[in-house]
């Protein structure tokens, strides 16, 4: 099952697309709710801290070469506790995938196609994701390479064409907020941006061709993703102003509405939305991939293909009920998600690392 290998370059593209993911849609809103015009500083600090977090992931990748997160769990915590931890991790990525799917449905129903039931878009989106999973990681990686260039071109057009609307006075005064709000909002930023990258540990040491090169690429990927998001936040605040960007649900969509070149090129937000579909797709695919592969390995199955269709069906059904309304989701994001993401993105890798080091020390003492 694990004969599929992707190259370090493809891995970097996965990291970039995954970390930008759905974050690009609403991050400016939740960050400027916390920090107002200083939101971009929180994002920059968050990116820096994310690079430190990547050091932890790289250390884990070095200690357990050729292992996925599920196998690491079983090695460190023993067979049964390891399996339980793995199952809870699978639930983490599965429920987040379902929430992401309902986000896709909500976004389309609210902003673009209000008369189409969101269930239809959710089912269609889930179908292409299941198709991608069934075709395998290599196919996904190649399509990521193609679509990534699309994404970058759209992003550059997006940023450049908004330049005329920039007003510098919107981000002044700088550094008005205190230390604690800054820490809090950079944690918030990380919980959307880099802590979910723990699912990449299902791919990273095990299915990447050149592990040494991939370590470097993990850094570069996080750096590029963080820079893109920070640019986006600065731009949103400079164009819309802190109040308006905090009040919007999808500020980058209203930003795209502002694009106007020479009085004839306007209302291009639907084209810009392609950018979000690309990143959302890969975020969703990686979450679902982690859940499927994780479940197959926890149950020690040799073939994950038969699991994809039933799991996909459960995912779609779960996404219908998991998110009853927008208020529920924003409360969940504020009250639960940060701690939930911290416990899997930071605490679990940290436990794995210390557990393995303790194990080595105890074994070393026995041998003496």
């Amino acid at each position, binding site marked *: 099952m694990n004969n599929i290998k992707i190259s370090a370059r493809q891995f970097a593209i996965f990291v970039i697309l995954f970390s930008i993911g759905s974050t690009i849609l609403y991050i400016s809103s939740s960050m400027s709710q916390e920090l107002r015009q200083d939101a971009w500083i929180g994002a920059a600090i968050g990116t820096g801290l994310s690079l430190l977090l990547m050091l932890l992931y790289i250390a884990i990748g070095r200690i357990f070469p050729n292992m996925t997160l599920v196998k690491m769990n079983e090695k460190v915590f023993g067979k049964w506790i390891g399996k339980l931890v793995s199952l809870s991790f699978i*639930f983490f990525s599965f*429920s987040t995938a379902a*929430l992401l799917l309902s986000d896709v449905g909500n976004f389309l129903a609210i902003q673009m196609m209000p008369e189409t039931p969101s269930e239809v878009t959710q089912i269609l989106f889930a179908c292409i994701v299941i198709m991608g999973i069934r075709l395998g990681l290599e196919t996904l990686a190649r399509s990521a390479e193609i679509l990534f260039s699309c994404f970058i071109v759209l992003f550059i057009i997006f940023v450049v064409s908004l330049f005329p609307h920039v007003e510098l006075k919107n981000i002044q005064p700088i550094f008005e907020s205190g230390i*604690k*709000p800054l*820490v*809090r909002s950079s*944690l918030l930023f990380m919980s959307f941006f880099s802590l979910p990258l723990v699912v990449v540990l299902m791919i990273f040491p095990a299915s990447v061709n050149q592990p040494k090169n991939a370590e470097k690429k993990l850094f570069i990927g996080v750096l590029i993703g963080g820079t893109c998001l920070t640019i986006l936040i600065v731009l949103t605040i400079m164009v819309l102003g802190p109040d308006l960007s905090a009040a919007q649900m999808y500020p980058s969509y209203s930003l795209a509405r502002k694009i106007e070149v020479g009085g004839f090129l306007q209302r291009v937000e639907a084209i810009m939305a392609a950018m979000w579909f690309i990143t959302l797709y890969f975020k969703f695919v990686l979450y679902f991939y982690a859940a499927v592969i994780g*479940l197959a390995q926890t*149950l*020690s*199955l*040799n*073939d994950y*293909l*038969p*699991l994809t*269709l*039933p*799991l996909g*069906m*459960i995912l779609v*059904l*779960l996404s*219908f*009920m*998991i*998110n*009853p309304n927008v208020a*529920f989701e924003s409360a*969940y994001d504020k*009250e*639960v998600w*940060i*701690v*939930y993401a911290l*416990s899997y993105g930071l605490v679990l890798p940290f436990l794995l690392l210390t557990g393995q080091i303790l194990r080595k020390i105890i074994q070393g003492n026995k041998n003496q």
Partner: protein
Amino acid sequence: MLGVVGVLVVAIIILVKEIPYLKKKKLKREGWAFSILLLFAVGLGIAQSLHLNIPNPLNGLTFIFKPLSKILNEWLK
């Protein structure tokens, strides 16, 4: 009622698609996992289309993580 029929039709399509593959490769454990998951999916789908009251798993998460998040928020206030 239409929802129940829809769920069953999807389940039958999945069965028709996967059973030959499972048989051809003689995957026994995979077959078990596949049928249990599919059974769960059909049960969930029928319960949803009959508008039964299904607990939202995120409420459970809220119950577990809300105290921790309160501590974190107090500390960072």
